[in-house]
């Protein structure tokens, strides 16, 4: 902290506030057009869902024996996206990682909305959506309770816990920031921020409890985030179905989740940085480290693919081998190879430091990763069911317009909510940037950018 005297180095605390708060100024027309676009898509998706509820699941492309496909794929995909947020905000917080400060708020916001999106799909895919609450334990005259042995009930618990905790975590983190926003705001905004800020003044008493609570939340969120995607993976691993039943699923899905999540963070941050002029807060240093995480998780995922295939070969069970043969070379085989390309091959580029800080390339890679991870879930979920134990029941799945539009709607829903948040609440944590201002300063030094 030698260099903490404000007049010495830039950026100063107020520079940080300025750059962050600038983003929150009244948005322009284009922004509202974008928002309108997103929510129109959402409306269309909602329309298709309504139709599905009204006429029956038959309007989807689902069939014997593929009972789950795009909906559950989306569910897993979005839950996965959510994970990186908690990773960056909680796990890296515990590791006292220095580069997280600039990116964690955006990541956490993404988490919240991704979980909100993911949470829709278990409802959408239910045959009788209107009875979804039967999955929760609630007192009723017939003492009917959910079956706690069912992974879907674990899901219900895990995902709702995750939603609650990440929301609390996000809003706790927001408190000091909205407090400083409050000081700059007028009119309804001032009231809005004042409410969110809970009358925060940064007194030593507030900080003392705040830091402790935040630390513990991080400590709780860390195992939670791992458990959530493990539980999601167990939706499949618990089955005996070849291609689903595999012990490696839990860590493999967690890694995959972080992989896709961090990629999504990059996908969101790169344009944000450009559009809202955040170059002096989101430096190559940050992206360099995000890219490293992507690379690492990509390698873990590759390891999992490899182990899975190896073990299928090693175990020598013809049924499983056939399933994997179909996964590689069946009608949907091209998806498998696309997945390998996107998740295992393309990320290898990130071994090069120059690519890691070349934001354009990095952005494109991150999009490939997103595609790849969606594909992975689809290949695992729909593909494995198609080639089940019962050859007479083999059949392959084709999505219908309903699934396609609802999926599109979900993306719009996510982006729309995120965009709303980003312009009305601090999308980068001023407090933590100030706290770690030394690292930011160093990161902004030209020579680092070269070194990275």
């Amino acid at each position: 902290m030698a260099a903490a005297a404000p007049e010495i180095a830039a950026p100063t605390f107020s520079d940080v506030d300025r750059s962050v708060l600038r983003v929150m100024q009244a948005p322009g027309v284009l922004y509202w057009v974008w928002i309108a676009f997103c929510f129109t898509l959402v409306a269309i998706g909602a329309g298709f869902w309504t139709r599905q509820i009204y006429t029956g699941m038959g309007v989807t492309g689902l069939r014997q024996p593929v009972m789950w496909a795009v909906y559950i794929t989306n569910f897993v995909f979005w839950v996965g996206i959510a994970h990186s947020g908690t990773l960056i905000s909680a796990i890296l917080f515990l590791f006292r990682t220095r580069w997280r400060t600039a990116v964690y708020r955006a990541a956490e916001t993404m988490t919240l909305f991704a979980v909100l999106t993911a949470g829709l799909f278990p409802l959408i895919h239910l045959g009788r959506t209107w009875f979804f609450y039967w999955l929760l334990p609630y007192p009723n005259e017939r003492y009917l309770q959910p079956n706690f042995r069912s992974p879907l009930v674990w899901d219900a618990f895990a995902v709702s816990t995750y939603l609650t905790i990440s929301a609390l975590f996000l809003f706790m983190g927001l408190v000091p920031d909205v407090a400083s926003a409050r000081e700059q705001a007028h009119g309804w905004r001032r009231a809005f921020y004042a409410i969110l800020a809970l009358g925060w003044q940064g007194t030593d008493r507030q900080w003392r409890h705040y830091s402790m609570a935040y630390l513990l939340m991080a400590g709780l969120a860390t195992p939670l985030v791992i458990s959530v995607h493990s539980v999601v993976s167990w939706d499949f691993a618990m089955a005996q179905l070849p291609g689903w039943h595999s012990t490696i699923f839990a860590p493999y899905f967690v890694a995959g989740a972080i992989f896709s999540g961090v990629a999504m963070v990059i996908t969101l941050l790169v344009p944000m940085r450009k559009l809202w002029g955040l170059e002096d807060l989101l430096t190559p240093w940050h992206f360099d480290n995000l890219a490293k995480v992507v690379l690492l998780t990509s390698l873990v995922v590759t390891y999992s693919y490899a182990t899975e295939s190896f073990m299928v070969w090693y175990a020598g069970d013809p049924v499983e081998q056939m399933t994997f043969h179909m996964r590689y070379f069946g009608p949907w085989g091209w998806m498998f190879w696309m997945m390998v390309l996107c998740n295992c091959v393309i990320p290898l580029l990130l071994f090069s430091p120059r690519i890691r800080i070349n934001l354009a390339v990095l952005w494109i890679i991150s999009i490939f990763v997103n595609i790849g991870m969606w594909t992975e879930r689809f290949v695992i979920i729909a593909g494995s069911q198609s080639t089940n134990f019962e050859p007479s029941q083999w059949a392959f799945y084709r999505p219908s317009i309903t699934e396609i539009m609802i999926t599109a709607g979900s993306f719009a829903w996510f982006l729309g909510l995120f965009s709303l948040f980003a312009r009305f609440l601090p999308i980068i944590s001023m407090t933590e940037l100030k706290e770690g201002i030394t690292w930011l300063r160093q990161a902004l030094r030209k020579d680092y950018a070269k070194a990275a």
Partner: protein
Amino acid sequence: MSDAFSRRSFLKLAAAAGAGAALAGCRPAARKLIPYVVPDENVIPGVAQFYATTCAECPAGCGVIARVREGRVVKLEGNPADPVGQGAICARGQAALQGLYNPDRLASPQLRGDGAALANISWEQALKMLNERLAAAARGGKDRVAFLGAPGGPTFEKIVRAWLGVHDSTRAVFYEALATEPARAAAQQLFGRRDLPVYRLDQAEVLISFGADFLETWQSPVELARQYAEFRTPRRRRGSLDIGRAYYVGPRLGLTAARCDEWIAAAPGAQAQIAWSVLHVMIAERWISQNSHVDLPALTAMAAAHDPASVSARTGVPAETIRRMGEAFGKADGAVALAGTHDESATLAAYVLNAVTGNAGRTMVFLDGAPPEPATRAGEVEAALGAMHDGKVDVLLIAGGNPIFSMSATMDAAGAFQRVPFVVWCGGVPDESANMANLLLPAHHPLEAWRDTAPRAGVNGLGQPVMQPVFPSRAVGDILLASAHANAPAAAVVSWKTAAEAVKAAWLDLAPRAGGIDAEDFWTKAREEGGRFQDAKASAVKLDSAALKAPPAPAPPAELTLFAYPQIFLYDGRGADKSWLQEIPEPIAQIVWDSWAEIHPDTARQLRVAADELIELRTEHGIIEAPALISERVRPGVIAVPLGQGHRSFGRYASDRGANAWALLAPGALSIAVAAKPAGMSRALVSPLGKSDVMGRSIVEAMSIEELARGAAPAAEPLAPEPYEMYPPFPYPEHKWGMTIDTNACTGCSACVAACYAENNVPVVGREAVDQGRIRSWIRIERFFPEKHKEGRAPLAYLTPMLCQQCNHAPCEPVCPVFASHHTDEGLNAQIYNRCVGTRYCENNCPYKVRRFNWFPPEFPAPLDLQLNPDVTVRSGGVMEKCTFCVQRIQHAEIAARAESRAPRDGEIVPACAQACPARAISFGDMNDASSAMMRRRATNPGRGFRALEELNTQPAIVYLRDLYREKERT
């Protein structure tokens, strides 16, 4: 029924009420229930009555028992008292209900105006018009009134003839498209009698079928399937354990062929020659039984032209194969040869073969007192049509048979009918023949009418109405009698007023004079038992040496032959309006809702047709187009097309579906030279089947009889090093229901599937939905073909019923988040529809893929909904369902037993599938009771039991007995 009227009064209400109750199911809104106005002593709400009657779906005339709930017949079951069906019933029989409740049945008499438009008229108008026309015709002279219809039993025939008599005519034509005439002609020629023999396959050791699909549609499939299962049961024969040896000689590997040891692919014309050649072999080898007293020289002369070598040269069937068949047949202690419908030459040969080997009277039995030939002979039919052509007929009354659909174009039935000024059509669903009629009269379904049957000597079936008419229809017999009386009031030509009276009168005649049995009691007993069943004496037959003339020289084989065959469910086409029969996959082709042209890959290559591509088939009689089904299960140079589809109008289920192969045929033949070329377009054949290759998975298993005899059962190695059980055992204190399925007995006839549809309110989804993988049957026939390398070391096809295995460690149960799927303390894998939220997770986890999801709320177009079983919920949209082992029947029996404070007896509980199975392949019982028939069946078949996908440790409650095949002595 004396109380008929009091019943009538409330039954209509009751029907509505019951239907309402059933339909309400688990839907959110329950229907309005109508209370009983007049309570009826015969009907206790919620308790089923059973009425014995007879099945009218095919000439076999099995006895059936109708299960009636609140005045609605909801299920047909076999009549155990009937010697033909012996309590079993085929898919077509089950589907009779859909004929009864068919939504497209004629709802009112209709008159065709000038613009060919039909207008509803009242019965009074209709009958008035009919009577006037008849009277006029009668005045016009002799034989100006004609009757053309399906055989309806002896009494019906009497009524028809009486009616015609009144109108001074004798033109009665009882028309069967698939006639037994050739067989009768053959019998006439050889034995001087015109009846059909009955067969005792179970008495035989060797069976050769020259194109007789006796497990599908030939003569009496239910009975023959039962006998065949018996025939194939491993028994000690000449010291060693063995199963019956069966050969099938014919152009296609259909269901029947698939269950035989060997399929000898012969062109349609060739079966007869091969049969003769087999005879030749036996003569040459002196395998002629002495006691057959046959005139050997004549016999020798008869078969002279058919030495194996030359026959082999003509038919392409290896001489060695022929000799092998001959040897087997000749040496067998009991053998039987069967020949296909419409193949007189082959039938002759088969009769001779049976006779000269002393099997006449043993495996092929002619009975004394055989009933007269029900169908009119082709010649007379032609004559009648000719008369119409020449305008000699003023009034034609068509009652069933649908001649327009199934008669050969050369007969030009249409033309004939057009020349008849007034054509009356009586029937249910208006068909092609109805289109020719001026006046359409809604007729009772057989299940609504009084009738009798006489399928064979000693068997007199009584058909009684089992419920009130669903539509404002009348029995044809009543219509005829009414007009007879109307037009001949004075003369008491006809003693009975109604068909009911006529039938009763007929039965009172049947009543034994001796023994002091009161005729009324006899009548009552007949109504209880569904007929009179007596043993008929077998009569000795002797080959008439004079008849042993050499068969006519076979026509030179065409280079491309069309072979049409009655489809197992649609028969001659009468099944096509029943959605169950459309939706149940044809067991071998596994295709639904369509007809197809089965063609060998080589032939397809020559014709340049691809799979699913429409082939245009052209004969001198007509043209049809059918999608190609390319398979090696048909002889090269033959195109096999199933009969029964291609209706132009026959209700919503049959109309404009598939192609009508009858249109290509000449009268009295099922094969004909054909010209074929790709039609350019294609239509994908729809099948619920994924792969035909079982990939060596333990879903179906087979072993050779030799292995079994050797006691070399496949070693059951442990699934893994013991101990591996992770869960505590659960006790099943009272019962643990289980099933044993003998896949060796199973013929794949799908009677179980139809029975399940009927019993469990399984909805029909239609062609498109099946294509989308939404077929809903709870039980299906798994059909796999052995891998190439296994040929000769496997059955020709694996066929086995696949239904919920009711696993002890069911993978579907624990994953259900709401306990909709869980295990009962009687070992059943229960599915609670009302609790199901539709996650479909259970189906993901079911290794057998036997669970079915309600993609849409089910539809039962009225009045098909009247057939719904009130004991079974109609599942709403969005819930999962599956086989329950007919839990409603289990409950029913348990409650009954508890009422008598005893345990349910073994055999008291029979699921619908087991009950229907003609081959008795399925047995159900309590696994806690080692003495139950089901468990004994397991115990008495050591080395044959296996559980499907056992390695998953799901511990199914169903044990399959391995299919048995014979290690081929290939040539």
